């Protein structure tokens, strides 16, 4: 047996680590495009951007870990093709790797705009971090998590920051209006201009000397598509995260799976999803397959706000607020009918942890 993992992000790295943790002794190879060992992305918009940690501080494992655990890291040599009939991955350099199981953890890439920088990789973060050493008039396009986290760091460092969002509210994909409004108000209090439902005007753009686009990502599915696997937004997988080829799995940002929490097929771009899907696939390869049912959760740190979300709250028709938003500590429970979809917490970690556990117990009950 030999496992090849395409993608050296959090999901790909964890797949290899989980295989070792679960007692797999065969060869494991992780193939990555970038020239750096697997690293965590969340700090790139937070501590790394702020200059509080360096690359060593964001690596998922120290560089020496991989050799010590018999994990081959092939970096800077992207996978070019999958030859399914030969069970072989061919890299750009021509190197061919045989697999008994292949894990696609190819991630996603940011949507781009001409003249705007993006923030996805450590190289992106490095450019922006350097740029924030000089006074800047920063224009952020898109009021999603990446844009707002960047705005928070830039503003904290004293830069002029404007956020422009085409939709009428911030974080529209992710949280309820109550939480979104609260977050926007905290940005405004600190002097960030937030323009919602706004077209990006030429003068606005002309005024800025640093333009950052945070307008979402596109999953990397070309390899899967070229190999004839089903793709629908992401790489389509079943309850065990297998593609239509039983020897190929897909996990993390690139995988489209059916989620009981969303009541639909979705992709999730989160550390939780990357880690839990990796562990699930490792178990499947080891012969103890369980369907993927982990509770989705997500967090964001902006200024002194710790925002934590458990479950998928999109599609709720009713909310219950626990605590006073003006105190800066509250939780919004989101329901559809009587069913609790999830909770969105601002500086209320206990509500987050308790709800996550409650959702997990309900999930276990409904699967059993």
């Amino acid at each position: 047996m030999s496992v090849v993992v395409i993608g050296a992000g959090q999901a790909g790295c964890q797949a290899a680590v989980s295989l070792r943790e679960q007692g797999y002794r065969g060869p494991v190879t992780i193939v990555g495009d970038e020239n750096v060992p697997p690293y965590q992305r969340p700090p790139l918009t937070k501590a790394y951007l702020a200059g509080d940690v360096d690359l060593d501080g964001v690596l998922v494992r120290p560089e020496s870990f991989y050799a010590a655990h018999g994990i081959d890291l092939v970096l800077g040599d992207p996978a070019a093709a999958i030859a399914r009939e030969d069970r072989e991955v061919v890299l750009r350099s021509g190197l061919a790797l045989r697999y008994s199981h292949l894990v696609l953890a190819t991630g996603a890439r940011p949507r781009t705009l001409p003249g705007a920088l993006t923030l996805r990789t450590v190289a992106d973060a490095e450019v922006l971090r350097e740029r924030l050493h000089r006074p800047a008039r920063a224009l952020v396009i898109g009021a999603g998590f990446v844009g707002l986290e960047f705005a928070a760091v830039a503003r904290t460092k004293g830069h002029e920051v404007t956020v422009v969002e085409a939709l009428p509210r911030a974080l529209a994909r992710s949280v309820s209006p109550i939480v979104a409004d609260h977050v926007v108000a905290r940005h405004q209090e600190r002097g960030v201009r937030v323009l919602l439902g706004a077209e990006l005007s030429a003068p606005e753009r002309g005024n800025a000397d640093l333009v950052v686009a945070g307008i979402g990502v596109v999953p990397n599915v070309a390899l899967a598509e070229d190999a004839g696997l089903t793709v629908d937004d992401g790489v389509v997988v079943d309850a065990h995260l297998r593609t239509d080829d039983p020897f190929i799995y897909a996990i993390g940002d690139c995988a489209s799976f059916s989620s009981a929490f969303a009541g639909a097929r979705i992709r999730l771009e989160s550390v939780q999803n990357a880690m839990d899907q990796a562990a699930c696939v490792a178990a499947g390869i080891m012969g103890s397959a369980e369907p993927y049912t982990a509770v989705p959760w997500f967090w964001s740190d902006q200024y002194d706000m710790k925002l934590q979300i458990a479950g998928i709250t999109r599609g709720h028709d009713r909310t219950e607020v626990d605590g006073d938003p003006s105190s800066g500590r509250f939780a919004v429970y989101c329901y559809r009918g009587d069913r609790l979809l999830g909770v969105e917490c601002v500086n209320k970690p206990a509500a987050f942890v308790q709800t996550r556990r409650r959702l997990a117990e309900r999930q276990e009950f409904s699967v059993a």
Partner: protein
Amino acid sequence: MPKITYTQPDGVQSVVDVNEGDSVMRGAVLNGVPGIVAQCGGGASCGTCHVYVDENNTKPLPEMHPVEDELLHCTSSPRQDNSRLSCQLPVSAELDGLVVHVPETQI
């Protein structure tokens, strides 16, 4: 480098060199010490890097932030007086020789 000792529930100990400035949590994760999950990567967001500080500890530990205190109320293994989140314990020369006990469960 300061040495930190992690004791598993079955008594097995790992003695690990941890960089000054790294947290007790990160020392465990980087060195493959089992039982410290740290799902959130160190943001005091998840409560899955819970440890019990050795009862004979005399080393100076930082004050507990209210967020840590709140999270410790809902850890998977029961909270005790010596419970801490290991991501909130930065390692310094003063902590050389610290012993922490890994709880039975984190999730």
